Structure formats: structure tokens, C-alpha cells
């Protein structure tokens, strides 16, 4: 049986593409990293790929806002390809800088009545720490059926999910587009409390999907929790659900 081909985008400054590739391979996919310049110059057929990963990093040094210039690449060079991928219902995941790019390109949350962005953390600085995520959406194919909280690290300075009109949060919730929220102690949502919600996101939102549920964007890094020894408390016998589960779900949807 052929492994599903997974396109991992690399823009200048992307740096978690190898991490994502490792997660994809472990989940059973064939990871193929392509630089944006290669995609522009070579005749790569996007339709030959079954899954798209927009990985983390600092594309174009985060100049003018994280993900902003990669979003410009997506909307200027690959608008048709990305739309076709999304419309075909193929799994798409944007992680950290990839999430920022998908939001700023208008792919997420993917509805004209909600204007969203990812902006500077409330703390005012970059932060690297492990968080616990509560899966909250059956609409999203990446989180569907997950019952356990997922542990993985965040590492970002501009991860605060913000809406132009805070009242539109209800619309996202109602549509099942809030896929992952930051957890506080005791298995409940963080309710905005730092550091459980590490960036001050509205509604503790760590990840959102499009209305169809095939495109997920999230700030935390599930690709950096695919093996038990990556967990910060493995020496204490702690585990927590692997971020790998998300990638396995993505594969399952194919």
C-alpha cells in the first residue's frame, strides 16, 4: 500500500519542518518538504498530495507580524492550489507560524462574518512551555474522537487569538470551530489564567478549524510530542496524550 503523500511547506525562515516531517512519518505518511521557491519554479502538482502541513518557524523573520509574509505568499502565488486543497476536504494543518499564516491569509477561521488574528502574547514576550489541550470539536477531523487532553509545548510570541468583534466567539463555538482550548488544573478550561493559557487567547483558544472541519490551525506543537520521552515529566512516570494522535487522526481521515 502506498503511504499518503504529505506536502510540508517551507518558506524562508520555516524551522519546524523537520519536526513535522518526523510526526507525519510516524503517523504513517510520506513527508515531502518543499520550499515555496521550488513550488513556484517546478511543476509540483498539489493534487498529488493528500495532506498539507504548514509548519512552524519564523517565516521571513516574522517581519511585519508573524505569518504575515508567508500569508502573502499563499494568497499571491498559491491561492488556487490552497483553495482547491481546502475545498476538496483534504486535511490541512497549520502549526504555530503555519496557523498564523493561515489566519492572515484568510483560510482560518474561514468565514466572512468573523475577523480574527493572532497577535502579541498578553505577557508581552515569547514563551516556551508545555501546555495541556482539551479537544472540543467533533467537526474538526483532526480532533474528532479524542477524549483525552493532549500535552505539547508552545513556543511563540504572537499566539494570542483575537477577534475584531469578541461577540463572534459564540458563532465559532456554535459551529464547532473551536477545536482545542488550553486546560487549567483539574481538567477544566484555563479560563484565561496564565500560564495555563499562555498567551491570553480569547476563550482559551489554542486551535480553530474551518467550518468544514478539514483545516486545523493551532499555536502549540503536537509534532514535538510524538514520543513519550519528550514529555517534560517522563522521569516522573507521567505521560499524557501524545500530539501524534492529531496526525494519526489526520491520516485516518484519508
Amino acid at each position, binding site marked *: 500500500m502506498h503511504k499518503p503523500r504529505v506536502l510540508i511547506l517551507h518558506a524562508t525562515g520555516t524551522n519546524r519542518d523537520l519536526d513535522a516531517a518526523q510526526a507525519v512519518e510516524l503517523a504513517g505518511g510520506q513527508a515531502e518538504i518543499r520550499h515555496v521557491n521550488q513550488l513556484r519554479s517546478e511543476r509540483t502538482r498539489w493534487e498529488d498530495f493528500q495532506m498539507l502541513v504548514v509548519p512552524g518557524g519564523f517565516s521571513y523573520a516574522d517581519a*511585519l507580524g508573524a505569518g504575515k509574509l508567508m500569508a502573502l505568499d499563499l494568497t499571491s502565488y498559491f491561492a488556487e492550489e490552497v483553495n482547491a486543497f481546502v475545498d476538496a476536504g483534504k486535511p490541512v494543518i497549520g502549526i504555530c507560524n503555519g496557523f498564523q499564516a493561515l489566519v492572515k491569509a484568510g483560510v482560518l477561521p474561514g468565514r466572512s462574518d468573523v475577523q480574527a488574528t493572532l497577535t502579541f502574547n498578553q505577557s508581552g514576550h515569547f514563551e516556551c512551555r508545555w501546555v495541556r489541550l482539551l479537544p472540543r470539536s467533533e467537526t474538526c477531523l483532526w480532533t474528532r474522537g479524542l477524549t483525552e487532553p493532549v500535552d505539547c509545548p508552545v513556543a511563540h510570541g504572537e499566539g494570542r487569538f483575537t477577534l475584531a468583534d469578541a461577540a463572534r466567539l459564540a458563532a465559532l463555538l456554535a459551529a464547532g470551530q473551536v477545536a482545542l482550548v488550553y486546560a487549567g488544573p483539574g481538567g477544566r478550561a484555563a479560563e484565561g489564567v496564565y500560564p495555563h493559557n499562555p498567551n491570553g487567547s480569547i476563550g482559551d483558544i489554542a486551535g480553530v478549524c474551518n467550518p468544514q472541519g478539514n483545516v486545523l490551525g493551532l499555536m502549540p506543537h503536537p509534532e514535538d510530542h510524538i514520543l513519550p520521552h519528550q514529555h517534560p515529566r517522563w522521569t516522573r512516570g507521567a505521560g499524557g496524550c501524545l500530539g501524534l494522535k492529531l496526525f494519526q487522526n489526520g491520516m485516518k481521515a484519508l
Partner: protein
Amino acid sequence: MLQDALRVYRFTVRPRSATDPRSDACLADAHALGFTGIQSIAVQDLYFIEGQLTPEDQKALAERLLSDPVTQAVQIGAVADGAQAGRQVWVVETALRAGVTDPVAEQIVRAARVMHIQGVRRASTGQRFLIHCPTLDEEGLHLLAKRLLANPVTQRYELGSIEPSFPSEAEASARVDRLRICGCDDEALLALSQERRAALDLTEMRAIQRYCEAEGRDLTDIEFEMIAQTWSEHCVHKTFKARVEIENYADLPAQFKGAYPGGVVDNLMRTFLKAATDRIAAPWVRSAFVDNAGIVAFDGANEISFKVETHNHPSAIEPFGGANTGVGGVIRDVLGVSARPIAATDVLCFGPQELPFERLPEGVLHPRRIFSGVVAGVQDYGNKIGIPTVNGAVLFDEGFTSNPLVYCGCVGIAPLNLHRRTPHPGDRVVVIGGRTGRDGLRGATFSSMTMDAQTGEVSGASVQIGAPITEKGLIEVVVRARDEGLYSAITDCGAGGLSSAVGEMSSSLGAKVELSDVRLKYPGLAPWEIWLSEAQERMVLAIPPKNMARFAEICSVFDVELTDIGEFTAGGRLVVTYSGKAVLDLDNRFLHHGIPQRNLKARIPLAAGHCPGEDCCRGGYTENVDYTAGLLALLSHPNIASKAGVVRIYDHEVQGGTLIKPLTGAEDDGPSDAAVLRPLGAVGPHAIVLSNGVNPEYGKLDAYRMAASVIDEALRNAVAVGADPARISLLDNFCWGDPTRPETMGSLLEAARACYETALLFGAPFISGKDSLNNEYLAADGLRHSIPPTLVVSALGVMDDLSKAVSMDLKQAGDALYLVGRHDPRLGASHYRLAGGAQEAYDGEVPPLDASAPAVYRALHAAIQKGLVRACHDLSEGGLGVAAAEMCIGGRLGAEIELAGGEPLCALFGETNGCLLAEVRPEHEAAFEAAFEGLSFQRLGHVRGDEEFRVSMNGRGLIDLPVAALVRAWKREG
């Protein structure tokens, strides 16, 4: 486009929300610097675009590129200054000086093209600050601008609106000056060295004169600059290779005389550092002291490289840029041995954060500003380039006020036998990466000089801001070119720029280089400036002509610029032309071997290690000690307290290999001894261990014991997490004062001698090292300010089974606590004394190193391999008391500790080498004790389940504290 049709368009971007984290942070910084009357600061972004833009273009740029419409608003054109809603608001605007790297501006120009906006020619960026402070006058505002808002080295500021500056193109290029050297007297020779800031002494100038006379001509400016760079302390380490005569040899006791036969050390690097490596002859050392980085074998398929550099002088002047390019530089060192960088480390030493401005020497930035700039610079580079920063230290001492120390390390991985290091005649000389500008001129010689109040101004060009994304491109290109075997040699462009890189690569061959082919950031550079420029993010490769096409293809995919500037030749001469005309023609033998050996004098410090004075560890007994207060003061001492504020802003998770993280334990906040990493691409369950040792306080008292102690500290940290003590290699980084002073040279010799003896004791070879000397500051008061002698030892360990790694946090109530190693504490230069602010802090001894330490580490490693150790933590600053408290903090568990004996204060807080604490399950106690048969160990007590931390001696309670109180003190939460 007509020149006169060009305009500069101004865009001001402000947050829509009233609360803005960046503005809040700026306000907090202002308050911390003493500007307490300021009620608010609003920070806004400025963009200046030069070109010809339609109103539609301006709107598109403003809304689609320069701002985030959800959170920000943009104003195009001038913004009214002054009063807002009836209250006095000051405006300060800053902009980068012309020629300072501005990556955002470069992206604006690129993005405008992507958006099909053709009228954009150049861009530049700045910031606008709106300051609300009724009590601030114009003088105060200037002070605020200088101390917080702008650094004059890279930025300009204006009260009110600022005009952007673009690099001037007016200056003449191609200009080559001829310098008169033949026939000059000594005075004229020294004047020339001084005038060109060459840092060459008379002997060296005379050697240059002899060369000129033999060649029958004077030198061009570019030739002279190249010799000065090649012969600089930074590049050739002439102090470490000097012949040193010991002035007070006759007065030395017998054991010293034996250590320095004849009272002379000829080349301390060879005598003490390389000699240790040679004698140990570890079969797993693949390259030591020859390449850009040391290299050891790893998992059978890969090798690991490691290099640590310092970037002290640049960080003193421009903290962000200095640290930023320090990280970038050491990453290129690792890239220069064809390795993919997998981890970064940093050890930072600063002046006290609360230093009053009155005590700050003129021309020196406040330690608080240096701290925040340096930390931000490390963060910016490491995070953006995607290399996890996993190990380090942050220390404070008044001795670092004028001269902060910034040690940046980088670790890399490469498949065995793919690194090539021999250029062949006919290979092309190829430069890849960033363009060349006037940035960083004479950095190599600058870093070899003592600084004074003018250094910041004169040497402003010596610092630059890095562009980590450009360097990321270099990594992508080099790794692929390596795997395809496209180059025959590679080196980085560091201090000395092309002069150093091409000079070194061609030193055993020759080369011909055409300088007008080098791509410039802006025109107007003279040939010597192009040759010496230390513009960042460049590598030089030797590429056989047949591979050029494929190499160029890889570069273009990753947006990396490539320039072919010449070829390697068999001639033995380096010839540089500018537009075909020879401007440099030097004999490689003279250039690389013509430097006269330096002669220096040393005075061995006799008092070291035999300090008189009161030391309770030597028999005295201290009455009326508040042990509880002592412990809490130690835990909240800046050197010991939690560094979470620094650690958490570094990405230590990228690449997914960080298995023992810098912070660990039940709440992810205990201080790890070392990092354990499994690199991407590693084969099997192998992992690497990274740790360090540093102790400038010991350095003030006893350089020998300091050096022995920090080597031991680096090793025991590595062993604590599971490294095999038989597989640890070391790196030495010396930061010292002016070696022409015999006392300074004497302490340097003693430290180097300790390196030799301690490395042999442990069988741990040095694989790389570096020195930064002249860390002194001549203040306006005419007094010299020198740093404490500071040796950082970095350890690189290997473990065969990552699942055996151990963290430092206590795991379970009821487990036994053991102290292993010979506990022989001292209070001289101890943190207990420092925390108490005691006058007698430096009385007494620095702890010696017990000869049993290697056996203790072997026994501990064997116990760890058998799974007998649940937690392990080393005794360092603050001694046994702090080590035990930190384990409790890590595990959020209490402990019951009964001290075996001795003077209680010394037993609890005295500092010792060679000791660790271990947590052992009750059922493993017998096996654990058996592992230490014949060695010193004590069963100290056990882990408590009730979160009480209790210490007693002979039944007398010394400390009884809830763990929560330890946590509060350690986190400095009130």
C-alpha cells in the same frame, strides 16, 4: 524613474486597543531605570518608504502589509505631535543609522514586489514613543532616550519627528592608500598601529617593516589591515602561544617550581590544554583544536561538534546586536565543520541589576539594559533560526558592570566522514549569504583592546544586528551541499571577514580574489573595507568548477545569494585585485607564520589556596546562626534564584529532541543540572548531554582552584543526568584581563595548569577552546576596571540509552537521600557569604578538588545505569542546603535531613567539589550502597510526603520550612 520624483512616505502604526503589552513592558523598563514619574508610554511603529506611490499603493501597503487590521491602525503621512486631550505628551522617535542591517526594511521592499507595487525603492524602520510624564523636562527626556529608547551605536533619536536615513552613496570607492613603513622609526611605527587601531606592538610592527624592506616596498592599506587582522589576539591567540617568564620563580615553593620547569612556559595552549588532550588520547575524539569546532564520535553513524565563543566587547556596546551576532557567529562555526546545528548554550555574566547610576562608570550602559538586550539578542537569533537553547547560566557581579561576558555555544551533528577540509588549486572561492557592508570593521582588533569611554563611538561600526533567517538559509544550503559532496573546504566569515576566512583557507595554498565581484549592501566601500567587513551570515566555500551549477541551484531554492570571487591557486601567495588592479599581494608564509612570538611576564599569586583569615570550616564554630534566614537568602540570591524568566523566552523544544529540559519536575520549574538531547537523525537510543561550570567568585580568590572547580562542576552536572564519565569532552573559554600585567598573566597560567591536571585526573579531554583577553575598562576616573578571572567549561557527554536519564526533582515520599562524594566544604568566596553581604566574603579557602571524584562519578554512573537513582542533583553554589532545597522545589516534596557532623553552618552552606545528592528507593538502598563501596557516601535522610523541609544535626533542628516557602524565595516572590 526620475530621481526627483522620489518621495519618502511615512506610515505610523499604532495598536487599536488601549492596553498594549509592548507599551507596558517599555513603561516597566523606564520605571526600573528610575524614571518613576512616567505615567504611560505608548510604543508605535514607523515605516519609511522611498519611492513613487499612488494613493492606492499607499493604502494597500498600509492595510495589507504594514499593519494587522484587526489589532492596529495606520496613519499615512505626518502625525501631529505634542498635546493630546489637554495633557503633556512628549514624543521621541528613533530610527536606525544608515548602514545598520534592517531585515524588516528588506522584507518591505521584497513584499511590495510580490504585491505588484513597483514604486517602492528603499525602506527603513523606526519607532515612535509617546511619553506621558508631567514631571519630565527636556533634559530628562534626553536621558530617557539615551538610557532606554535608543542606542546611539545603531540608532538615532529625535524629540519629535525623525527623518529616515538611507546609506549614502556619495563616498568614493576603489581608493587604496599606501602606508609608509619602510624607513620609519619606532615612534612612527607605533603611531601607525594606533592610528589604524591595529593593536600591534612594536615587535610586530618591526617584523612588518622587515617584510616590507625585504619586498622593497611599502604596504597598501588593505595589506596592512589584513596583517593586523591575521595577527590579532582574537585570530591568532598570541598570549596563549607566548613565551611566558615567571618573574617570581625564585620565591615559589617547591611544588610550584615543579609545575613550571625553568620558570618558563612556552605556549600555554600547547603546554596545558592540547597536552592534556594528547595524553588522554581518547579514541572517540575525532578533531580537537584544529577545526572551527571540536568533534567527537556519537552513535556509530554520526559525529557531534561543539564550539563556544565569546562576544563580550560588542555586547557591552550594543547588547542586543552583540549577543545576537555572538549566537550567529558560533552557529557558523559549527556549520564550518559541515554540521547541522542542534543546540545552543549561553553563559551570561552581568553587573548587579540594582546598581545605582552614580556607581556606573561613564560611557557604560546600565547592567539592567545590558541584561535585557543580551537576553533578547540570544532569544531573537536562537528562536528564529530554530535551534533550541538548552543550557547555560546567568551570573551577576559588580566586576562585570563595564565588561559583561557573553559566552555562546553551539552543538551540531553530521554523518561521519562527510566534512571536507582541503581546498584544491582551481577550486572556486565562493561566498554565500548576506551582503557585505561597512558593518563590523576591525572587530578582530577591536576585541583585542581595552575599552574606554570613547570606544562606543569610535568602534560603533564594530557591531551589527544579525539576520537569523539569512543564516537559516546557509544551514539548508550547506547541509545539502555536504550530502552531495559539492565542496572541498568550508569556513565561516567571522571576525576579520573575508580577509580571515579566505586567508585561513588558502594559507597552505594561495588564492586570487577579485573584490569588485563581492556583492555589497550599498556602494562606496573602499577595497580594504570590503575585505575586512564583518558583515554577518556569510560562509566561504571552496567549490570545484564542475559542481558550481548544482551548488548555485541549491542556493537559489533557499534564497541564498552566491558570489564567485576568485580561485585557489598553488602559488603560496594571496593576491587580491579590485577591478583587475592588484591591491594586495602577500606571501602566505609571512602572513601566517611571520608573527613574532610574544614575550610576557607572569607573577604567580602565592597566596592562592593558602588564604589566611577566619573560615569556620577550618575548625571554628559560628554561634547564633539563623539557618532558615540563611537558606532563604541563598535561594533568592540572583545567581541561585530561578532563571525561568530567561529560560522560558528561549525556545528549548524546537527540533523535538530535548528530553531533560532546562526546567524540570512536578511543576516544570526545578533547575536541571544539564540538558539531555536526542538529535534528529540520531541512530538508536543514544543521546547527548550538555552542561557547564563557571564560578567567577572563586576566580577572584584562587585561579587554580577556580579552574579545577568549574571543570568538576561541568562534569558532575553531566554525570548527574546520566552522562558516561568516560565519554565526556570539555571546552575551555577563558575571559581574563590584560595579560601584559604579570599578575593577570600569573593567574591565567595557574588556571591553565589546573585545566591540564584536572583534565588528566578525570580523563576528560579538551576538544576546543577560546580566549577573550583585555576585558578591562579604563574609566574617566583613570582607574582600570577588570573582570574577575572567569573560565567557563562546557561539557559534552554521551549516553548510550536515553531512557536511563535522571532528573533532579524528588520523586516519592519515603525514598532515601544520599550524599555521595567526599564532602569537604569551604566558605571562602561562597554564596552564603555573598548573600549575607559579609565583608569577609573572600576570606578563607576556595574548595579543593578531591582525588576520589572520578571514582565517585564512575560509581554513580554505574548506579544510574542499573536504575538505582530516581533523582540526582549536584552540590554547587549554596552547598548541601541549597541542593537539597532545589530537589524539594523540583518535586514539590519535603525532606528530612540529618547532618552527619562537622560545623553545622559549613556543613549546610559551605561549598564543595565532587559531591551530589541522590534519591534512592528503599528497596534499592543496599544495592546503591554496594556501588559506592570504598568511596565516601552518607545516607542523609529521606523524602517526606508532607512538603516540610527539615534539617537537623545531632537531634537539634536547624531548619523547618514548608516547601512553598522555598519556592517563594527561589522565585523571588516577595
